[in-house]
């Protein structure tokens, strides 16, 4: 398999995972969240999540009552503009942005970086 075909395949796999498989992801709290929520019961209210009991997440939330600083981002919480069912699209955009940012950074970091083809072929 040529390198460019391999890389294209790799990108496609990432896009399928983020764009399709993400709908089947568990929405239960992850390992860390389970620990920080241990001791509290979570209930969904019109104002957001409410934590009753004693847990780490409660103390953390008390210090940051406004929530995440980027909660107003158009892709916040892996949804496009907060719309339900847009996880896949948000994921695809995330993959593309991540690939772009990382691709640029690693090209800049590459010794004698710059445009491809400016170096002798190895």
């Amino acid at each position, binding site marked *: *398999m*040529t*390198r460019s075909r*391999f*890389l294209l395949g790799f990108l496609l*796999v*990432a896009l399928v*995972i983020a764009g399709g*498989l*993400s709908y*089947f*992801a*568990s*929405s*239960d*709290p*992850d*390992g*860390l*969240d*389970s*620990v920080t929520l241990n*001791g509290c019961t979570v209930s*969904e*209210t019109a104002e*957001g*999540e409410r934590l009753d009991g*004693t*847990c*780490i*997440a409660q*103390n*953390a939330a008390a*210090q*940051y009552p406004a929530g*995440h*600083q*980027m*909660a107003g*981002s158009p892709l*916040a*919480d*892996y*949804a496009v503009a907060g719309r*339900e*069912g847009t*996880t896949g699209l*948000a*994921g695809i955009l*995330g993959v593309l942005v*991540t690939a772009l940012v*990382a*691709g640029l*950074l*690693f090209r800049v*970091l*590459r*010794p004698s970086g710059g445009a*491809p083809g400016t170096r002798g072929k*190895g």
Partner: protein
Amino acid sequence: MVDVVPPAGDGAGSLAGPGLTVAMHMSDGLVNAPTAAAFGLVAVLGLAIAASRARADLDERTAPMAGLVTAFVFAVQMINFPILPGASGHLLGGALVAILVGPWVGSLCIAIVLVVQALLFADGGLTALGTNITNMALVGVFTGYGVAYTLRRVAARSRRGLIATAFAAALVSTVVAALAFVVEYAIGGSGGAALGTVLGLMVGLHVLVGIGEGIITAATVAAVAATRPDLVYLLRGIRPAIDQGLADEGVAR
């Protein structure tokens, strides 16, 4: 503007949707401000060293690979898998990137994912970026690399050896990354749970997460090695002749 999701029994299965707070990493306030700042410094210093050392590992073959590995980790981190009733886990990616692109480039990969998630997806607190980068991009990556490097002869010997190496590196890396959180909580945790409880739960849950991490890491590394073994950092130098032959021909196997 956030929809209210009924606590349970909505028949929607386990679809993650807006309304649920989708968070995968440390949020703000789990540790106090001085601790967050101190680990912010650790993260900046660690990434600066990684960036300078990464240059030697980046060329026109590995740089595009590193970019796509980063995007791949972002994608797979979205997939929370169940570990216990009511609890899930997801890939951290430390061992995966260490094996595929090396520890220096790899720690930059994970840091990029964490920064994109925090800034664009409101996932992982901005003040918690230092601790998140320390745990996953530095501790997770270098632990994974340490285990994989120790087992590199096993990894180079056979496909089964490579799979076992990737699995072990991922499992250990996940548990040690979880321990890094416990250390941060011990130093400056916001309170709300006893340290012993946090330690026990973090380790117990992350052994389970680590099994999932191990399966995903092993499957991914095996797939890359089956098509382009020359793009697996860990195998480079151990099988130089094979690698060079493949690179020259541009073919698999």
